[in-house]
């Protein structure tokens, strides 16, 4: 019993220390005068690696989730003769919840794990140390561009996910199941509020982008520099980031749509 309490205390302390180190890392990376002009090619490269290369998985997932939503939604709505509400159902589900959340989860698996592994390996092969010895701050040179790439890319990916999902819903609902096409769009227009639904969704996505990217970078930067350490760090990134996204999603949903 005493041992378990000790363990709990140790885990809590460990988590808090980790949070502290992550904050310090972020502070070190972002503090001071940013030099995007000098390093713009680094930022571009990271946005390509983190964002553009995640497009495929986002497009395919968005399309299929939109199609499934329409299919499931249609069966229920049809029972009440409310098929024309399929548009708002698909759009609201995607904009408010599925778009930001699923994008963040996919992003954690696709880009987050890659970031952790890359930085962990750079640490293990002393690349970060050697950069430091060359008087180049690895936080600014390595961490900062990846952080901004994540924070910029993910909300854009979520918007793309939403758009493709809505088209997928149209594909199934209108083109296959025969819901009225004009009704699909006009009901959506009438029921989706820009501020309440679209903007809030984007805000969620920015928060998730921050959380996932920071976790991925921190786990890599903090990884034990061995093959086992890096494999653990990569797993932890995906698990921690996914759980954090779901947790934050609940809180944000309660604040945004709970009242």
């Amino acid at each position, binding site marked *: 019993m005493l041992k378990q309490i000790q363990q709990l205390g140790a885990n809590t302390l460990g988590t808090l220390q980790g949070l502290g180190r992550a904050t310090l890392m972020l502070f070190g990376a972002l503090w001071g005068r940013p030099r995007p002009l000098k390093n713009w090619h680094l930022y571009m490269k990271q946005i390509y690696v983190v964002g553009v290369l995640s497009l495929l998985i986002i497009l395919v997932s968005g399309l299929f989730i939109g199609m499934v939503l329409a299919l499931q939604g249609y069966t229920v709505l049809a029972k009440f003769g409310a098929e024309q509400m399929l548009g708002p159902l698909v759009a609201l589900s995607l904009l408010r919840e599925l778009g930001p959340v699923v994008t963040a989860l996919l992003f954690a698996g696709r880009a987050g794990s890659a970031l952790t592994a890359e930085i962990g390996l750079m640490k293990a*092969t*002393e*690349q970060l*140390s*050697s950069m*430091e*010895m*060359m*008087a*180049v*701050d690895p936080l600014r*040179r390595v961490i900062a561009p990846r952080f901004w790439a994540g924070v910029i890319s993910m909300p854009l990916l979520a918007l793309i996910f939403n758009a493709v999902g809505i088209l997928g819903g149209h594909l199934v609902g209108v083109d296959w199941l025969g819901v009225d096409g004009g009704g699909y769009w006009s009901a959506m227009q009438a029921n989706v509020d820009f501020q309440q639904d679209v903007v809030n969704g984007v805000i969620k996505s920015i928060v998730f982008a921050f959380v996932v990217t920071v976790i991925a970078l921190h786990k890599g930067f903090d990884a034990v520099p061995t093959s086992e350490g890096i494999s653990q760090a990569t797993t932890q990134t995906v698990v921690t980031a996914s759980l954090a996204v779901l947790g934050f999603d609940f809180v944000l949903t309660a604040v945004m749509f709970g009242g």
Partner: protein
Amino acid sequence: MEFGLDKPLVDIQNLTFRRGERVIYDDMSMQFQRGKVTAIMGPSGIGKTTLLRLIGGQLKPDSGKILFEGADIPSLNRQELYQARKKMSMLFQSGALFTEMSVFDNVAFPIREHTRLPEAIIRTMVLMKLEAVGLRGARDLMPAELSGGMARRAALARAIALDPQLIMYDEPFAGQDPISMGVIVRLIRSLNDALGLTSIVVSHDVAEVMSIADYVYVVAERRVIGHGTPEQLRQHESPLVQQFLQGQADGPVPFHFKAADYATELMELSR
């Protein structure tokens, strides 16, 4: 800062460093004279790499001073430390080349980061450094395509890219075949003399070190157990130094890691 050329470039005074409970260095002092190749030898696991990291300011000692050009490295603020690091350079054991860049870009990296020179001049500088280590022809290769010895030479070219005053070699001979070993031995000496560098070589390869070093420190058991020119060391009366230089398995540095009494521990199992 004005600083006498006759003073050592790096002066370590009464350094104590602990890692957790374990004392790595206890009240240790050493000097590294300008323009000389100074070697630090000692058995593995006594923290020779740690010493280089202390000099580079990547670790902080528990007490003592590490003077580089008269400035105490551990007490410098971040900006001063980065300024000091521009004058020093370190060759890591693994080479630590940036894997996503070609050899050329690796060598150009510190120049591009710290200067605003036009690309044509950078090209000339990089080619000169690569020529010095014999890898001018390999400039377009990626680090993964290099052999271990070549990677270390490429890293050496990168380390001298900005003409540092001090260069620290971490186990430069470890895991090298005899030919690349010979090449690196020659490079350390010739670069030191041609560029007017001060070199610190950390190694446990006795023969190679004794052949190039001007001065040698032998470190064991948390302190310097002997120092002098290679010639003086060969005559050293300390049995510890002699054990190390001659590579005897057992002696004052015990073969066994510190442990409880053997017989007692074996008997514990049967209890």
